[in-house]
């Protein structure tokens, strides 16, 4: 816990000062990195921690970005638009979670896949509101500066990491992990599984909703395909699995690696980065199913003091001479 805070400080403090020294190019790269952390960490909160895989978390990103863009067009200040994006994502997530997370099995995954498609279709067809496939262009005068946008994404990344760390270290973290390991047994031990899953899910929708607004403001243009983007879903999954699913730092580490690789490849070979995503996903699943962090943790686990019993000589019932 203490180490976590130290690492967080080492990352956040330089990040706060980056706008003073970095070029717009580098700042843009970092903005994308913070956005990726915010999204991946949100996915981690529901899917990494409970094992209920969401194939459509980009839906909240899309909902948020449209809500924010429309709010800005309506004359709202940008920071209220950000709040609107987060709140609308939350409002959509709550009933969806209550309905689908009562059920075990794949229903949730399928519902999320459907939500993303539904969002894209509504955004395309509801022309009066969303300008359909033409997309919404936002005049730069309405938008915050690059520095403000950068800071927004940084804050969202911190919020998402903070939420995961807070839950992970608390009682709810134990409950969510127990659900992932065995939902029936957890329930028999007194875990209100539905309530826990729904809370985790609703929390996981908020940051992507806000990040969608940040994205819309940063690019100043959104259309249905770019925000309800299947590739965004894949990115979140790859980032989390690569770093370490269900951990605090896994998504951060994964985002650094994926965003970094993408930047390199994107510049050189525009289409290759999609292939890279796919290849990375396969490699991770085959060779590193628990992510890069698991290598570090495995090493930790072999420390001798953790294997030999240290105290309390066992006395009762001759249990220990049996077996091995």
């Amino acid at each position, binding site marked *: 816990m203490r180490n976590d805070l130290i690492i967080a400080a080492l990352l956040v403090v330089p990040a706060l000062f980056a706008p003073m020294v970095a070029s717009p190019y580098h700042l843009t790269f970092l903005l994308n990195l913070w956005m990726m952390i915010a999204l991946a960490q949100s996915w981690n909160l529901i899917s990494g921690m409970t094992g209920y895989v969401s194939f459509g978390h980009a839906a909240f990103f899309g909902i948020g970005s449209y809500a924010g863009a429309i709010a800005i067009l309506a004359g709202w200040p940008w920071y209220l638009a950000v709040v609107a994006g987060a709140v609308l994502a939350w409002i959509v997530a709550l009933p969806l979670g209550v309905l689908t997370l009562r059920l075990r099995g794949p229903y949730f995954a399928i519902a999320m896949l459907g939500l993303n498609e539904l969002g894209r279709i509504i955004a395309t067809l509801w022309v009066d509101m969303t300008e359909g496939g033409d997309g919404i262009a936002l005049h730069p005068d309405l938008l915050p500066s690059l520095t403000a946008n950068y800071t927004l994404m940084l804050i969202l990344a911190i919020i998402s990491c903070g939420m995961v760390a807070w839950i992970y270290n608390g009682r709810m973290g134990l409950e969510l*992990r*127990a659900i992932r*390991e065995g939902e029936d*047994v957890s329930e028999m031990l007194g*875990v209100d599984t539905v309530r826990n899953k729904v809370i985790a899910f609703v929390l996981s929708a908020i940051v992507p909703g806000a990040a969608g607004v940040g994205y819309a403001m940063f690019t100043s243009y959104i259309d249905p395909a770019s925000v309800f983007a299947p590739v965004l879903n894949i990115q979140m999954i790859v980032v989390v699995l690569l770093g370490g699913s269900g951990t605090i730092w896994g998504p951060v580490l994964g985002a650094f690696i994926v965003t970094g690789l993408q930047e390199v490849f994107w510049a050189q070979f525009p289409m290759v980065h999609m292939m890279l995503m796919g290849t990375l996903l396969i490699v991770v699943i085959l060779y590193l199913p628990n992510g890069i962090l698991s290598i570090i943790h495995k090493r930790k686990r072999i420390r001798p003091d953790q294997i030999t019993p240290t105290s309390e000589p066992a006395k009762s019932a001759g249990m220990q001479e049996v*077996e091995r």
Partner: protein
Amino acid sequence: MSGNNSKLLKIRALDVSYGSVQVLFGIDLDVTPGEIVSIIGPNGAGKSTVIKAVIGIAPAQRGSIHFKGREITRQPAHEIPALGIGYVPQGRIVFAEMTVTENLEMGAFLLKDGKRVRDAVDRVFSEFPRLHERRKQNAGRLSGGEQQMLAIGRALMLDPELVILDEPSLGLSPKYVDIIFEKLMGLKEQGRTLLMVEQNAARALSVSDHAYALELGKNRFSDTGQALLNNTDVRKMYLGGA
């Protein structure tokens, strides 16, 4: 012994169906405090379903279940542990990717007070020293017998009055079957009440104060464990003849 209030658990005329398939037909069952009670019967007799109805994961259509005089029929599963019923699932399902200690903590996660949780963990460790030796290992690394001890230890974390066990000896080595049954006797000596479903009928009857033999979802025989062991019909039908 026959008064209502002397029963810890009382099941009356219980019907359970899964979808359109009825599994239990008017089951009656009593558990008296301080006893070991077993449910035996062939596969498909509905043994496990009886206890699943008690802990709220099988839907009771008709009939009633009372625990300590209070009706718990159709009470949601996650509300059962707080009433004083511990459950050891079939196939000793433990949280494989969690450590032994974390598994035990899960058993007491209803307690808000960290000190009481630690006390409960220590209590289980003193009961199962083997678990203490392995406390930092992931439960998935334990042997089958150790996992069963862990599952029992987890069920004891809230200090339940009634411990319900689903097939506690299933799939264990003979050595561990002995150890587990010894442990169950030990729990009884501590004053706990046990209700178990067990495919090893002879073994279960030999330690049971009372037992119920089911057949196709109905009560067939019910008597003391020893009497059922000596009953020729029971021997023929449930104990493989002779």
